[in-house]
């Protein structure tokens, strides 16, 4: 604000209170220019763009309810005798952590509801991140300039998994103790450093006396702190890059068509926060989650069947359950491949999706900025790869719950495990092929619609007796939307001889890249979109059906 303006305002009498407050704040915080630049920020409208908001809001709900829980939770493994209000555990020895969680559930006002909101919100948060990530993947929103933000989001997902895991371990109940034991086993399977890491993490032999207190610091401070920072960075980058949008008339790679942040999106987002909170609160009100009182306190000599981690770790559980128990004894050292291979696959599988944006941009050689989203059908190879990844993930979720599936569908657990073992390798391939076919089919349909119009459902009888179905031509907007996507040519290795006629040697990586590029954009991977000439020829002709 210029000084002159404020002087003129003052000369007309006292400025309104709101303006004075704003002026006071601006003089100290310099928020005016920030607000001016961002208040009218435009966001495009699509339901799938709100998936990230579901994650953000459930994260906030987790933080708020988590703070309440810290007021009553004692992160201590001191042994105490229980004399609270849950009868089936009275007189039992347990850690203070478990006892205080029982107290939160039965003796703290609103404690059980808050605990259940916290846990349900965590389940929804991770599920939301998974779906949000898939939305970004399948629409190609991770392409330049958003690769870094994709990595931030990926890190949030992985950190969310581990924050969830450490939180689930805190009550020190029999289920979570079994989960921590499982994790310790996985750590131990790492060659050379495994035993050292385990001893360091648990402060000696498992379970020791430090586990809960250490996991508590990690769960409430370290991981959420990093996540909060990443969330802020994630949002700043969304603002900086501006939101992507689907192709349509008037939408270009250089603009954003939608509604301004203030007032429209502020109102919508604010309202949506309360809707998310409401849905999660209802969930917590009607359905129990992790009833630790039914599970009993953790004792390393006890174990129960049906011990699974929360869903987001089910993939890792499945890998270990499906893996044969291989083991190598090497110079007096045991290499537990039955656990270490799944652990390695777990890391590689996650890394694959994290690095995908860089892999795709290398293969396609596409270094341009993209702000217009792809429809998944228009990138059949990418869509196929994504579905293959999700298929492998889902098959391992089945593997993680193999016992529950066996009992509830009256199957043999061995048969379920074999299905998972074979399915992990075959399923993704089948899913890739089918998905790609479906995408190509949809592209053909789009082409057909552009050239011949929409099936009107009206059957017309011609004078000479022939029946035809009337096709209605599409509107200009629809035509544009269906043909707006770019079609790429596969990258070439370049001529075999250079300008001087000397034979040019292509590097191995270049050959590989050309092959992969052909797989992405070659003949079998996309249906050429209708050209203007084709369209004109068909629409000017007569008697087409």
């Amino acid at each position: 604000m210029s000084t002159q303006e404020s002087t003129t305002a003052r000369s007309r009498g006292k400025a309104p209170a709101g303006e004075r407050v704003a002026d006071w704040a601006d003089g100290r915080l310099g928020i005016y220019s920030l607000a001016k630049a961002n208040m009218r920020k435009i966001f495009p409208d699509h339901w799938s763009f709100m998936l990230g908001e579901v994650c953000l809001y459930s994260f906030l709900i987790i933080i708020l309810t988590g703070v309440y829980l810290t007021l009553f939770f004692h992160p201590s493994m001191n042994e105490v005798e229980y004399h609270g209000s849950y009868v089936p555990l009275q007189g039992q020895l347990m850690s203070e952590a478990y006892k205080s969680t029982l107290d939160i559930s039965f003796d703290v006002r609103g404690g059980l509801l808050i605990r259940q909101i916290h846990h349900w919100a965590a389940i929804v948060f991770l599920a939301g991140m998974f779906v949000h990530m898939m939305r970004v993947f399948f629409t190609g929103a991770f392409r330049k300039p958003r690769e870094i933000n994709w990595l931030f989001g990926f890190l949030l997902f992985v950190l969310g998994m581990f924050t969830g895991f450490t939180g689930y371990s805190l009550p020190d109940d029999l289920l979570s103790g079994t989960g921590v034991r499982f994790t310790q086993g996985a750590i131990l399977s790492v060659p050379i450093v495994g035993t050292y890491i385990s001893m360091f993490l648990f402060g000696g032999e498992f379970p020791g006396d430090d586990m809960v207190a250490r996991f508590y610091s990690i769960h409430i401070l370290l991981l959420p702190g990093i996540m909060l920072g990443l969330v802020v960075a994630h949002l700043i980058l969304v603002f900086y890059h501006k939101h992507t949008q689907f192709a349509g008339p008037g939408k270009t790679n250089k603009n954003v068509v939608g509604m301004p942040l203030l007032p429209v999106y502020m109102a919508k987002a604010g309202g949506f926060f309360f809707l998310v909170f409401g849905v999660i609160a209802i969930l917590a009100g009607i359905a129990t989650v992790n009833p630790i009182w039914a599970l009993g306190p953790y004792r390393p000599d006890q174990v129960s069947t049906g011990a699974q981690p929360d869903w987001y770790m089910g993939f890792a559980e499945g890998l270990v359950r499906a893996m044969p128990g291989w083991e190598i004894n090497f110079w007096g050292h045991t290499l537990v491949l039955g656990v270490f291979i799944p652990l390695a696959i777990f890391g590689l599988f996650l890394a694959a999706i994290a690095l995908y944006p860089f892999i795709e941009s290398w293969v396609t050689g596409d270094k341009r900025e993209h702000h217009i989203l792809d429809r998944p059908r228009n990138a059949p190879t990418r869509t196929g790869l994504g579905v293959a990844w999700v298929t492998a993930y889902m098959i391992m979720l089945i593997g993680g719950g193999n016992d529950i599936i066996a009992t509830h569908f009256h199957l043999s657990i061995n048969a379920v495990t074999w299905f998972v073992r074979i399915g992990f390798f075959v399923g993704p391939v089948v899913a890739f092929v089918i998905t790609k076919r479906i995408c190509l089919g949809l592209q053909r349909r789009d082409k057909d619609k552009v050239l011949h119009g929409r099936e009107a459902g009206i059957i017309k009888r011609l004078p000479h007796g022939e029946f035809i179905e009337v096709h209605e031509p599409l509107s200009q907007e629809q035509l544009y939307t269906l043909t707006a996507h770019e079609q790429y040519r596969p990258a070439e290795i370049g001529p075999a001889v250079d300008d001087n006629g000397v034979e040019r040697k292509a590097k191995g990586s270049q050959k590989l890249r050309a092959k992969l590029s052909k797989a992405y954009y070659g003949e079998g991977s996309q249906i050429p979109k209708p050209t203007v000439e084709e369209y004109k020829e068909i629409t000017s002709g007569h008697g087409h059906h």
Partner: protein
Amino acid sequence: MFAPADKAQADETAQSLAIEEGKQLYSVGCATCHGTDGQGTTDGPSLVGVGAAAVDFQVATGRMPAQQPGAQVPKKKNIYSQAEIDQLAAYIASLGAGPSIPTEEQYGPEGADIAKGGELFRTNCAQCHNFTGKGGALTHGKFAPNLEGVSAKHIYEAMQTGPQNMPSFPDSTLTEQNKKDIIAYLDAVNGEDTVSRGGLELGGIGPVAEGLFGWIFGLGTLIAVAVWVAARTAKAKKS
């Protein structure tokens, strides 16, 4: 003076009559697999020494006579009356000494320590039957059944005799008092009138059910809400 002798004789007669009746029932329903004298065949184990408790459990829960061979014989509708079961049990008990049918005093709730029962259950039973007896999978299609709705007597008999794939827990392993405690614990956490403190129990089988519920009803509802919110966009004013 002669009355007790008469009574004893009457009891003996009643007993031998029951055995006789039981043998006839046995010949019809059981002999195909267990052999004409309970000695066992390739299709069914010997019943010598399994005791009356085993017969009462297997027949009263409908598991025996088995409908078909398989990984495990499931529970089904029982078509024998208690009197017939007692006759069958008397016949099998006559083949060799084994655990007898427990009395109400043994499996009833009086004097049971629920919390101790919980500890015993988690130490001895939860590996197969889950934390609160919801059941679990064993290898090759075998399973540990859900214990909800199983009568106290049958739970006692199952521990005593170890039916099918279950190991037996004779009194030397789990004392009468231990068994009583376990039964009382199960009634408290997995009985017909157990209150689920946190709302819908979702089967009581842990995170798999919770994850499915969270995805379908949690995220599913939120996506529906998102679609609804996105469909209601502010309309630009026409100038």
